Every structure is written in structure tokens, then in C-alpha cells.
């Protein structure tokens, strides 16, 4: 098998895709957005509970998608919980550059290593949208834009 495939479909990613974390719809979510990739029909709903001070108190998602999009959504919810809106957006910016192959010194603080497992996506340009769908939905939810489409 090819190394770049092994790199893309690492154990961690397969694990997150088969058992996505925070795969639920919290009743007390106060921000949400629907992400849709018209190319493949994948959908994701991202739910956030934001505190008054811009703190993300809870993050969850539901949806259908490929291993890459599910794993990325699952890891995202774990990572942004407890962060501020500004911090989450900053991580997304760096992450987006990472998966597009535009960033070689990716630094997301304590989360760098965890997100690096998705770096393999950069060898598969057609899959960048899968990896970023939930993140786009997350920022839309924060900005109160209910829908985001990756096309």
C-alpha cells in the first residue's frame, strides 16, 4: 500500500471517523450552522454553546460524510471546547493552510500535534474540502450565518 494513503488514513483518523466524539445535538446550544458540500452531498451540523465572554463552553456536531470529514469534525469539537472564539478562528486559519500545503511551520499551541495527523490531506487536493467542512460550519455558527456551502 502507498505511504501517502497510510499517512492520510492513520489509526487516529479511522478511530475518530468510526467513533466520532461529541456526535450529538446539545439542547443548550446557542449557535449552530449547517455545512454542505454539493460535490459529494456530505452534510454537517455544528452546534456551539458560547458563553458571554466568547468562550466556547460546548461544541458538538452531527452529519454524514467520509472518514476525513468526520474525523476532522470530531477532532475539531474536542479542540475548540474551552477556547475563545478568537482562538478557535485562529486555529482554523492555520489548519486550513496546513491541509492546503501552504504552511510548513504549523503551530496551534498544545493542539499542534493532534491536528498534524490531518496533514496528510495536503497530498490529496480534492479532499481539502472534506477536511475543512466542519470548520467552515463552526465559523459560520459563530458569525450566526446558518448555512455554509463549500462550492
Amino acid at each position: 500500500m502507498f505511504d501517502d494513503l497510510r499517512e492520510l488514513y492513520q489509526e487516529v483518523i479511522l478511530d475518530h471517523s468510526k467513533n466520532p466524539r461529541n456526535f450529538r445535538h446539545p439542547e443548550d446550544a446557542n449557535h449552530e450552522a449547517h455545512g454542505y458540500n454539493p460535490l459529494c452531498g456530505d452534510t454537517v451540523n455544528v452546534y456551539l454553546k458560547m458563553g458571554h465572554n466568547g468562550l466556547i463552553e460546548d461544541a458538538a456536531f452531527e452529519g454524514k460524510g467520509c472518514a476525513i470529514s468526520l474525523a476532522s469534525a470530531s477532532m475539531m469539537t474536542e479542540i475548540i471546547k474551552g477556547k475563545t472564539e478568537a482562538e478557535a478562528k485562529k486555529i482554523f486559519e492555520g489548519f486550513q493552510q496546513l491541509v492546503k500545503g501552504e504552511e510548513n511551520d504549523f503551530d496551534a499551541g498544545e493542539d499542534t500535534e493532534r491536528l498534524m495527523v490531518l496533514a496528510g490531506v495536503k497530498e490529496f487536493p480534492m479532499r481539502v474540502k472534506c477536511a475543512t467542512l466542519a470548520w467552515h460550519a463552526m465559523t459560520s455558527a459563530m458569525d450566526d450565518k446558518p448555512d455554509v456551502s463549500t462550492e
Partner: protein
Amino acid sequence: MNDMTTFDVEKIRRDFPIFTREVHGKPLAFLDSGASAQKPQVVIDTMEKAYAETYANVHRGVHYLSQVSTELYEGAREIVCAHMNAANVEEIIFTKNATESINLVAQTYGAANLKPGDEIILSTLEHHSNIVPWQLIAERTGAVVKAVPIDEHGEFMLDTYLEMLGPKTKIVAITHISNAIGTITPVRQIIDAAHDAGAVVLIDGSQAAPHMKIDMQALDADFYVFTGHKVFGPTGIGVLYGKAELLDAMPPFLGGGDMIERVTFAKTTYAKGHAKFEAGTPPIVQAIGLGAAINYVNEIGFEKISAHEQTLLAYATEQLGQINSLRIIGQAKHKAAIISFTLDGIHPHDIGTIVDRGGVAIRVGHHCAQPLMDHFDVAATARASFALYNNRADVDALVSAVKSVQEIFG
């Protein structure tokens, strides 16, 4: 070129230069001809020659090259006319693709004939390009779009269709072969029944043209469309066949040069026949390329092509069927060589990415047929579609690549 007393697939593969290349260091197993087919050298050469040696605009000049170019362009129309067994070359209109052909009929015949409450009958098998143009014209005219259902095998439900037909039915637009699952529909019965109900019929032959002989006079379709790039021709060229009496009564589609008889600011009169629907400089070299492609397949012969493809379909169905947790979507009795499938717990996008690394090109997604995906309750499938140049090695490559998908996913 091909003395085809027997069908020699390896010889055919040598006609297609793409098969000399590798993908990701593997021989190319190209199983995505349903999306667009590869081109034989003769099509590439014919087009190069048309640009290098005979190029000029058509229908517009008295100079030598314009005349040669016009003869080649109109010659391509005659090739298409003979190939489709149309009664008359005036019935063959060149468009940009099948999508434009369908939109043309909807926007001209549909706009002129549909009234509020009239019904347009489609089916669940349709490609979006045989759905959306009808929805657009229905919205404008107050007509209603209805879809004939399919059964669990993906079979067009003829009995239900017969019940749906009635005095309100004005247009029936059905695919000849489903691009997503390969079902061959009973077009002859569909057309006859529609005619009995007083409706006109458009058949979307985009997937039929590469796999079977199409015969307008035998079918008696009112409109029949296909797209050049799927029959081994270039992109940018499509065909609309329409019965002469219908075309004559239809308003023009696009306005411009070539489609007129006489223009004054007070009143313009339109050209007759196909010219009325070919406004502006047409896709000249693309039409010439399409003519070469059609000559190419006819030299081989559709009987042989079809027999070869059906053998591959049976082999692929049997081989894929042995893979655990693989589900074939669409098991109609009469199928073209198109196999849609899913793997339990693995998204088609992941399948597509992984098999690609093995040199296997398949399409993954909804195949522009979302109502059909909804029917089978899947968001997407993986689809292998075969053409005359595919061989058993391609099937074997697919099967082994699918197994490696399962290995990776454990």
C-alpha cells in the same frame, strides 16, 4: 483500421493513446467513461488536421477554406444522421452538449406548448440535466413535473408510468440508460404509450450512444439527445435530433448569426431546419471530431462492442459480488456496463481516493442523480463504468483496489 471479424480489445486499446501512460506508477484502469470517454487517435488526428489544414468559419465565405470547412462540418452532420438513422439531415442539430440539447427543447417546444396544469413526466433515474431544465420551464409556464418511480432493483416501473399518462401529459422526458446504475429503460414502450396519450417524447441518450446502436426511425422518439464527449468525441459538441415537423413549428432558441433568413429592425425571419437552432459560429472542429468518433465505433460495430461490454459487466458483477459487505446498487435485468456500489461503513469518497492510488479511475458521488440516490437511501455511491477499451485486467485492478480499501479501514 479495425478488421473486426473478432473483437480484439488489446488492439482497440492501442487506438487510444491515453493507455500508454501510468497513473501513480500503475497501469491506468480507466473505469469512468460514463463521465467522459477517452479519445482514439483518429479523433485527435482528425481534429488536428481540421485546425492545421482546412480551418475557416462555416457557411460564411465563398473562399476555398470556408467551403472545405463547411463540407467537413456538414459531413459530420450526415455521419450523425446516418448513424442515428434519422429521416433527414435537417433533423440533426449540433449543440454544446446533451444539457444544452435538453434545455433547447424545454425552452422552445416547452415554452410554446405548455400551459398551467400540463404535466411533464420524468423518472427517478434521470440525470439532473434531464430534471432541472423541465423544472425551470414548469415554473415559467405553470406546468407540473412528475417522476415515474423505479423498483428496488432500479427498474423503470412501466405499469405505474402507463397509469400516470393522461390527457394532461404533454411531454415525457426519460433516459435511455441510467448513468448512475446502468438500467436500460423500455424506451420503445415508453414512446408508444406517450404517443397514444398525445404527448411528445424526449429520450436522453447520453449513456446509450456509447453502448448501443440508436435508430430514430425504429424508436419513433420525437426528440433524442446525446453528448459527444461520451462517445469518444471531443467536449463542446452535443446532438439534438428532433422530428422535422416539430422543429419547424418551434420558436428559435438563441438569436444571432446563421439562424436567420432576413434581418430588418422591423421584422426578422428565421432560417429553416437545423439552422434555426444553430445561432452563431458553431463548434466546427468539435463536430468534425464527433464525426470521426462515430465512424470509429461503427467500424468496430456495436454488436461486438455490446457483447464485449456485457461480458465485462458479468465478470465485474461476479467478482465484486464476492467482496464482503459490498452492495451493488441497481440490479436491473437489462443493464449497460455500469456498476454502482457501496461498502458498508466506508464512504465512497474514501473508496475513490484509495483506489485512485492503485491507478483505478472511478467516479464517486451522487452522479448528478440525487433523486435516485434518495431512492436507494444513500448519499453517494462508487461507480465503475465500462467502455469498449476496458478489459478483464481493469476489473481485476478494481477488485484488488477495493480489497485494499477494506484493508486500510480494517
